[in-house]
């Protein structure tokens, strides 16, 4: 099946979207990874169908679809990514959603829309930076770095990001998370 999926992916054709989405529900991780790659390559075109899938009942398919929209970065996925990063029970899904919040393509929104959405994303990521699982905190830190670089109103929103990064750098219990916060501070020009 993976071979067939890869052929569909290689075609880079929007007509393949429904089939690739069906593959997400087959409980075949190899095929699902290939289908996610294909859907991500098709970008925004795949987003409406993916969001529909996320409303469905198949939990496995939902997790893969969230992963795909997290990688695409289309702002239409913001509500689902915010909800997922806040409270999905599967840590790998929270992780993917947090990461996705850091790579939203803000140019697709008006600047007013971006300001209010970025405020929400900021609040959720600061919460995710306290997640019990280190890898979710790590993803939240990486995403805060991405968000900080894309802020429409850095004068009010960058200081809380830097505060959060600084807190995590000094106090997180997991050295890998501290290291990620250290890197984010370097990248944002705030060497700790």
């Amino acid at each position, binding site marked *: 099946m993976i071979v067939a999926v890869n052929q569909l992916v290689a075609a880079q054709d929007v007509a393949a979207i429904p089939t690739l989405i069906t593959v997400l529900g087959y409980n075949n991780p190899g095929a699902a990874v290939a289908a996610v790659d294909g859907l991500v390559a098709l970008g925004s075109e795949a987003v409406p169908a993916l969001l529909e899938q996320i409303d469905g009942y198949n939990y496995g398919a939902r997790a893969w679809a969230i992963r795909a929209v997290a990688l695409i970065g289309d702002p239409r996925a913001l509500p689902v990514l915010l909800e997922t990063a806040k409270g999905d029970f599967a*840590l790998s899904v929270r992780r993917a959603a947090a*990461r996705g919040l850091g790579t939203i393509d803000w140019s697709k929104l008006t600047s007013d829309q971006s300001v209010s959405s970025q405020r929400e994303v900021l609040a959720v990521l600061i919460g995710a930076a306290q997640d019990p699982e280190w890898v979710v905190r790590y993803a939240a830190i990486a995403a805060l770095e991405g968000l900080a670089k894309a802020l429409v109103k850095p004068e009010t929103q960058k200081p809380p990001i830097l505060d959060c990064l600084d807190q995590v750098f000094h106090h997180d219990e997991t050295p*890998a998370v*501290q290291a990620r916060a*250290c890197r984010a501070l370097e990248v944002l020009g705030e060497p700790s």
Partner: protein
Amino acid sequence: MAQDPQPLVNAEGESLTIDQALENLRQTADTGLRYYAAWWLGRFRVSIPEAIAGLVSALEDEGDRAPDGGYPLRRNAARALGKLGDRTVVPALIQCLGCNDYYVREAAAQALESLGDPQAIPALRSLLAGGVAAAVAVPDKPHLVQPYNAVLEALGTLGATDAIDEISPFLEHEVAQVQNAATRALYQLTGEATYCDRLVQRLQEPNLQLRRSAMMDLGAIGYLPAAQPIAATLAENSLKLIALQGVLESHLRQTGFPKFGLTDDARQVLVLMDELL
């Protein structure tokens, strides 16, 4: 994080307070509650003396018996003690290496590895008695006569250089995971990179279980040149991230992070990890 205010909530959303968990561990009427409390105290790193004492006495529990004759509570108590960092429990865990439940012995060996006290070395070595010839499967069980992986890994971590000659033959054991454990221990004991390169080659195995096992071993020993091959191997991102965390954190320790900041090598591992999120 672990020090957050109570009640602490687990992944399933059940919450306990420390007092409740201690009480649940103390009572004997409900074995399920005791079992969960032992796990919970370890998960949330509750290392207060009352917790340690409760878990140590749980290592001798007779109340919770599995259908196969095993001791589920003892297993969980040993695992929890491995997480709590209190070396006063080492003698009690050494006793568990003689338990007739394989999984208690395995949990004890892993806990002794985490606690890092070389006092445990002689007892761990004794489980290798008879060498590879004795290291056979138990009929009708999914495991060997001893928890060789855990024992070999612990001997490596604890720096048991005197045991090198006993460990080396396990490189040729018929079970690949045992070979990996021996490889990992010998790298830790000798510092010779050829051992790690054996594990890196394993990342190309057609068998997913073997790739996973090699990856976790490389993460556990923190072999920096394995970072790129780990990121590229065909396995779940979740496991790759854990292995890379191991590689990164071992490098961070060696380079004096956070005092001396990040090295370029550390930055590169972070880039690899970001791509797997």
